[in-house]
């Protein structure tokens, strides 16, 4: 149990690559929490993908002891938050568990869009914020310019920014002192009041079962007590209470202001909800903490095994991933073109990519991913509303009154010279400009955009038209009526369900043409002429023809060649099994994969 005044709970806000994890490592090291031989680089990011992509998916925490210049011992709880907009809600709960943030900005690169989105969240959480300029040792570092930028763009006083190099350790003692002197301790907290704790995150551990990370507001958490999760009214007997320092360490109890974990024979992560309030089952509080939201997927796609025989492996793999990530959803889906697979829902595009990558990497699966779709609200003429997240489920247009689509508010920071192409991209994608401001040689544009235009390769385009210099972040921003239609792709007059998509009418023709042209390149010529069409209802909006193959025969074939020829035929017939047959046309898997990628406009 630690005095409130000697506790500092904080998180680190940064853009990818600006040095968040390195700084965290230095702080851990400086507080002597680990022997240097135990230091692996970036301790907090434990999963491969997290380490490789520099993205934290799960919130993590480290408890550190620090003897300050005032001679007192302090307890720091460093919260590492997920670093991406897809996990904005998870981030907000993490921030709610802290009183302050370190804002880390690369002293040469300056503020990026992601920095902005994250720092605004910290400001919203009423955090005290200490700006930290990292990589100050690099020749390109320009602390004065970046300080000015922080003040101008974020509106934060940066005159006292701590200048450091997380890499060399320069300035780390100043950061530690700033944590003590400039961040506030937890505001209140009554040890004798009934237990009130915030569920920050949870994950599955092979040995411990579900591990729940929490922050106590009031009361005490200890082994043997029965706790209640208020959102689903479930209750559990606490088996272990502990902290990460950063090794898992069991403690007797935790009190107000403290951050730690509990285990309690909870079977699956889905039984715990981020943002939930944990209380004493025998002596519960009346009102839960504000701000709880169940997680809702916003992007959907179909995942199909390339080899149909992998369906069950895919099912098991998805179930395993869901054990640890309750925010993604899946249900079986069957497609005439792609066979059996799953319709999956994600918090965002990055979340989708992460799951897809983990399936391919950790479970060794080859997957076909259909075009991502957003969730449309379809209002019917009979007054009912249904949520549509699979183009295949589009109701009869005669029965539809209107369709609403989700919009986002996007911040884009881009060097001046690329501003024009970024504006064009946003306009092309039906965007509406909200704001355009200049900060030195960079512009910050705020746009409202339909999410369905963003899930469709927007990020790739943004990077390519700005040569990688634009940074981008967004928040969900309500629904709006849109003139949306279902576009089907037909091969020899037979619709290919896996390629159907919901598009805005104004964009349908372009998309249809693009997809038909792409398919023409990807489908090999066959014995018959192949017609590829894009259509809205019965109206064809684009068409391509693949002419029949004229010559496909071995000129010379005598006695010796028969075995070779037979083996070749066997191989080709084996290859046919991996093709999808639509309208008597054999479409190679690669054609689906490539057509669904659509990386170039």
């Amino acid at each position: 149990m630690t005095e409130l005044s000697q506790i500092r709970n904080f998180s680190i806000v940064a853009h990818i690559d600006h040095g968040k994890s390195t700084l965290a490592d230095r702080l851990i090291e400086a507080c002597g929490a680990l022997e240097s031989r135990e230091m692996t680089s970036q301790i907090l990011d434990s999963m491969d993908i997290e380490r490789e992509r520099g993205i934290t998916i799960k919130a993590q925490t480290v408890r550190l002891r620090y003897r300050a210049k005032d001679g007192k011992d302090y307890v720091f709880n460093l919260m590492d938050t997920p670093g991406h907009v897809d996990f904005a809600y998870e981030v907000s709960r993490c921030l709610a568990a802290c009183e302050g943030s370190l804002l880390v900005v690369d002293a040469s690169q300056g503020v990026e869009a992601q920095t902005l989105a994250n720092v605004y969240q910290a400001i919203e959480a009423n955090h005290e914020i200490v700006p930290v300029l990292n990589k100050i040792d690099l020749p390109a570092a320009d602390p004065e310019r970046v300080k000015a930028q922080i003040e101008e763009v974020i509106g934060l006083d940066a005159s006292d920014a701590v200048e450091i190099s997380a890499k060399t350790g320069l300035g780390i003692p100043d950061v530690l002192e700033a944590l003590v002197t400039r961040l506030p301790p937890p505001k209140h907290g009554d040890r004798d009041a009934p237990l009130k704790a915030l569920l920050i995150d949870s994950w599955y551990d092979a040995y411990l079962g579900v591990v729940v990370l929490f922050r106590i507001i009031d009361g005490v958490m200890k082994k043997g007590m029965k706790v209640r999760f208020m959102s689903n009214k479930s209750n559990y007997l606490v088996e272990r209470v502990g902290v990460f320092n950063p090794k898992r360490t069991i403690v007797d109890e935790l009190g107000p202001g403290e951050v730690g974990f509990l285990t309690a024979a909870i079977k699956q992560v889905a039984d715990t909800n981020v943002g939930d309030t944990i209380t004493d089952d025998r002596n519960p509080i009346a009102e839960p903490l504000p701000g709880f939201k169940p997680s809702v997927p916003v992007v959907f796609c179909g995942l199909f095994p390339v080899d149909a025989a992998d369906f069950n492996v895919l099912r098991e793999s998805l179930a395993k991933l869901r054990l640890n990530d309750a925010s993604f959803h899946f249900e079986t889906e069957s497609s005439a073109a792609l066979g059996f697979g799953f319709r999956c829902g994600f918090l965002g595009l990055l979340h989708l990519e992460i799951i897809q990558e983990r399936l391919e990497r950790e479970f060794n699966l080859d997957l076909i991913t259909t075009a991502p779709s957003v969730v449309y609200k379809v209002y019917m003429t009979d007054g009912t509303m249904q949520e549509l997240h699979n183009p295949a489920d589009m109701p009869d247009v005669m029965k539809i009154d209107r369709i609403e689509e989700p919009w986002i508010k996007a911040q884009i920071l881009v060097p001046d010279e690329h501003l024009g192409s970024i504006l064009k991209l946003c306009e092309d994608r039906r965007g509406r400009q909200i704001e355009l401001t200049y900060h030195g040689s960079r512009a910050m544009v705020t746009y409202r955009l339909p999410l369905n235009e963003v899930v469709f390769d927007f990020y790739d385009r943004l990077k390519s038209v700005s040569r990688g210099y634009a940074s981008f972040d967004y928040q969900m921003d309500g629904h709006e009526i849109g003139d949306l239609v279902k576009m089907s792709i037909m091969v020899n007059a037979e619709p290919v369900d896996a390629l159907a998509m919901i598009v805005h009418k104004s964009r349908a023709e372009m998309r249809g043409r693009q997809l038909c042209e792409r398919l023409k390149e990807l489908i090999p010529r066959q014995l018959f002429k192949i017609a590829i069409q894009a259509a809205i209802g019965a109206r064809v909006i684009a068409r391509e023809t693949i002419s029949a193959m004229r010559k496909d025969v071995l000129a010379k074939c005598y006695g010796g060649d028969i075995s070779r020829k037979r083996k070749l035929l066997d191989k080709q017939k084996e290859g046919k099994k991996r093709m999808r047959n639509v309208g008597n046309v054999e479409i190679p898997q690669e054609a689906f994969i490539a057509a669904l990628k659509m990386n170039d406009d």
Partner: protein
Amino acid sequence: MPSGNSSTAASADGGFGIYVHWPFCRSKCPYCDFNSHVRDAVDDDRFTRGLLAEIDHYAALTPGREVGSIFFGGGTPSLMPPVTAEAVIGRIARHWRLKPDVEITLEANPNSAEAERFAGFAAAGVNRISLGVQALNDRDLKFLGRRHSVAEALAAVELARRAVGRISFDLIYARPGQSEADWAAELDQAIGLAGEHLSLYTLTIEAGTPFAQAVRRGEFAPLDPDAAAALYELTQERTLAAGLEAYEISNHARPGAASRHNLVYWRYGDYVGIGAGAHGRLKDDQGVKRATRNWRKPESWLDRVEQAGHGVEETELVDRGGRVAEALIMGLRLAEGVDAARFRAETGSDLKDALDHQAVARLARAGLVVYDERGLTASAAGRLVLDGVLREIVAQD
């Protein structure tokens, strides 16, 4: 079923022939992936004894068969001494009964040195010569790596005709950059020179050949398939008009003058493969086909023959599915198509059980195949895309 212009009337089975491989060449042609080897010196006597020993071996396995054809292929069998041909033919005649009209073919290069020996081969019993002319202009002959000139080739054709009467020659077309006009003129000249038989192949870039490397390095690009198809169609029209209709995808003959030996392959008959790298197909009493494959390297083959009496490296039992596939792969190359009765005799299966009938119906509607109780035939258009047709119609096991 359209009538083929083959020399033999449809018999109950595919016939029986003997293939003899002479694996040596003066130089390797850049398009060729046949089993050929260049050697400074060849011990003709030892190789001849090897061939004879292997003939003895196979004769014991195929008693009572009647030989319709003997074929000396290569390599370059015209490099073989005529006495070798004589010994081989003699040994075959000692073991098996030869049909009265037995066809004995020798492949030959049309250069003057080899042409001088045509009379010797004729005296040894060879009654048909097939010449690798390949092109009728010197520039393309050079591109194809041939060592003869057009003038030499024309002289050799004449000598062969005088020596054995029945001759054929090969041309390779759809060469890089070849226009329809160029090929039409060359083809007309070839038709004028031809006797009863012509083999006209579109150039195929075979894996592992110098041409494959050259294409990979970008030294030349093969003619695109559409242009090659146009040349193929032009070829069919002109040969048909000249009475040399295609009886197989690349082979043309006057009525009754088809290569009897190659018909054995295409009708999926039995054949013995003698010599280095030769293949054979022999069915046993149970109707099971055995595929034999000899050691490819001439010296390895010779060592084996001298030790074991045969140079077989591998014998494979061709299962039902394999026999069915092979009979279709070969038979549909012929204008006469696959005869249902002969198919039954050579594969032990009914043709109707071997086909994916949905695919057959689809292809028939598109005019690519004709199917009835007598058999299955690919149309001229169907033969041009035969590999695609086969992928569709051979039923999955």
